């Protein structure tokens, strides 16, 4: 049952993506371009297909490593959104947490004369600490003062944005690029111009770390006590509280975990993909990651796939707009439409769930002794209402059920 429901989630996400591609194709046609050409140049730009010609020392692999480099912060950010989501919290402050972590890591480590062995782990640590602290602060505001995390994270986004902008413009500005001064290459988390089989390319050092974190979050949610508590609080804070779970502590902890992951996203973005910070600008990753997590239905493992997809859209769009002659905005439009359809995904799953329930009822009615075996997986073992949480979609079923709860 569980496996089939997970498959269902994949199916729904796939349908959402396909529908989105269809809609975008129509838009591209309306603008007077060939959608196939646009999509293939998108894939070429993202390193999935070979381009017609390359500059010296570059190749498909160069583009693909660039894609992985861009995907690393995206995956961290998506995990941040996903883990908060599972606790019933909506962290739209990922962009701000990223900026705060990236800024402090830049100032503390990026401008220091430390050697690579010391600097790189220190950058990660600063990212973890700053992001985690901001996340925990939001969790604290929610748990202690009942401040909605959506409002507080957005306010913090702007506060972080303006503070960092002030400091960068006043103290760390590079007069030529109008960005913060470049960090030392010792502290940078992406190695530049690495020789890979004769091709010069980027080497994102933290890509495997991001994948490992996805697995770790998955195991945490599925196999540990804290993970169970997070899911239980996410389903119903009151019910979790009554069953003896310290909901406040869980909220603070899950926001801290989310913030840690966002902090890692920040350092791999500002001190990895790039080596400086543009003042007064939040990264798009902070918001695109919501799309990624949503598409994966907040499943950490699914986030790997969906961040690969969304990064392909954003990373390939540059090449696409220059070769196919279509505005780069089409990429963000694509993400928007994917999001719209995956937001409807809950409805498809609701329909599927209703059909399944009806089928089961039929079975029970005809089979007779269906108690215990014929019930949905939710009722067959205690606590599994939350236990099925890692199959995508149960969140939406739950929303429908929650309507009647006090």
């Amino acid at each position, binding site marked *: 049952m569980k496996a089939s429901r997970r498959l269902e989630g994949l199916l729904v996400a796939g349908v959402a993506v396909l529908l989105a591609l269809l809609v975008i194709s129509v838009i591209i046609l309306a603008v007077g371009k060939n959608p196939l050409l646009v999509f293939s140049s998108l894939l070429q730009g993202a390193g999935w297909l070979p381009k017609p010609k390359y500059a010296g020392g570059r190749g498909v692999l160069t583009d693909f490593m660039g894609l992985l480099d861009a995907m690393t912060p995206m995956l961290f950010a998506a995990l941040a959104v996903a883990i908060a989501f599972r606790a019933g919290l909506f962290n739209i402050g990922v962009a701000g947490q990223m900026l705060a972590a990236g800024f402090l890591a830049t100032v503390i480590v990026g401008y220091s004369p430390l050697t690579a062995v010391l600097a790189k782990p220190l950058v990660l640590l600063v990212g973890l600490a700053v992001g985690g602290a901001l996340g925990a602060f939001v969790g604290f505001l929610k748990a202690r003062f009942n401040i909605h995390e959506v409002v507080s994270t957005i306010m913090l986004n*702007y506060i972080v944005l303006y503070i960092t902008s002030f400091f960068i413009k006043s103290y760390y500005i590079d007069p030529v690029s109008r960005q913060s001064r470049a960090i030392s290459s010792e502290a940078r988390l992406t190695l530049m111009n690495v020789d890979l089989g004769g091709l010069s390319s980027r080497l994102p050092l933290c890509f495997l770390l991001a994948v490992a974190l996805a697995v770790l979050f998955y195991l945490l949610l599925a196999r540990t006590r804290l993970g169970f508590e997070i899911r239980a609080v996410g389903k119903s804070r009151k019910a979790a509280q009554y069953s003896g779970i310290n909901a406040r502590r869980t909220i603070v902890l899950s926001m801290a975990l989310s913030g840690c992951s966002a902090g890692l996203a920040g350092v791999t973005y500002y001190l990895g993909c790039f080596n400086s910070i543009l003042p007064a600008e939040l990264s798009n990753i902070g918001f695109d990651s919501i799309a990624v997590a949503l598409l994966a239905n907040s499943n950490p493992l699914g986030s790997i796939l969906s961040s690969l997809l969304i990064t392909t859209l954003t990373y390939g769009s540059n090449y696409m707009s220059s070769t196919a002659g279509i505005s780069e905005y089409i990429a963000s*439009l694509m993400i928007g439409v994917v999001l719209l359809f995956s937001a409807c995904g809950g409805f498809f799953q609701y329909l599927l769930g209703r059909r399944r329930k009806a089928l089961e009822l039929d079975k029970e009615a005809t089979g007779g002794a269906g108690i215990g075996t014929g019930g949905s997986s939710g009722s067959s073992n205690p606590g599994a209402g939350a236990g099925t949480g890692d199959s995508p979609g149960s969140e939406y079923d739950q929303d429908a059920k929650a309507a009647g709860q006090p």
Partner: protein
Amino acid sequence: MNPIIIDGLSFALPLLIIAIGGIFSERSGVTNLALEGLLGFGAFTGGLCFVLITQILPMDSAVAFYLSFLAAALGGCAFSLIHALLCIKLRANQVISGVVINIAAVALTGFLTVQINTLAFAGASNKFLLTTAPRFSVPFLCDIPVLGAFFTKLYPFQPLIVVLAVICWFLLYRSRIGLRIRACGSNPQAVDAAGLSVGRIRLFAVAASGALAGLGGICFAYSISANVSPSIYFGGGFLAIAAMIFGNWKLVPTLLACLVFGFARSAASQLVLLLKMDSSVTDLAMIVPYALVLVLLVFFSRNTRAPKALGEVYDKGQR
């Protein structure tokens, strides 16, 4: 003192109309985080209307100016129907739907602006240029010391917003539809039992919130930057949401919250000017309204009473 009141008011009133939009939607039980996107889309359609009328038809820009408000309200209303469709019909998570609409609005308005500019006006600019709105002072009243500032250098949309706010108050608290909207937010089952369609009432409320947010969007476009560009997404919608939560989802306290934000913002920037500080300090002054929201929320959030059925999909079968 006067500039603080003048600038504060011109920021607070558009914020108020957006927040009232939020009240409509949330009192009917539909969480509306989409206000930011709705105001952006409203500003886009309003700006488009203005540009089309002034550049294609040889028409007076005053006509275009007023028509653009209508277009903004219609645009915001139309875009909010997506939110209504997702939340009411398709049973999507309302928070997710709101955020999705924000992201979609940023992408769509950006894309369309560039496309339209390249097609119609031969330039791949990402903004529509508006005129600076004419400002006026009420004769006699503006001569009163201190209080006169409330009647000085007004944008034409400010009295409009005040009138609309009064109408909205009447609609919400003294009319049949208002009662129904509020009932949908606290006890949709009762509304259903009374033989009314919860979905239809919520649809009306969300559409109204879209229209009001769109209107607020074009007001911001005229007063802040005199153009419609991606910078319209500066967080006004979220500030409005914060003001609404402050105001406990009630109209008059929300007005006070909006005034506090507006005056805090203008006071901070006036302070920077007054102390002759470096312009980079303006960035720090910009923090004030946002930080103030956080601090005030610490004190007020405990007593907040959200509409009881807020954020829940109405399911006839549930009790």
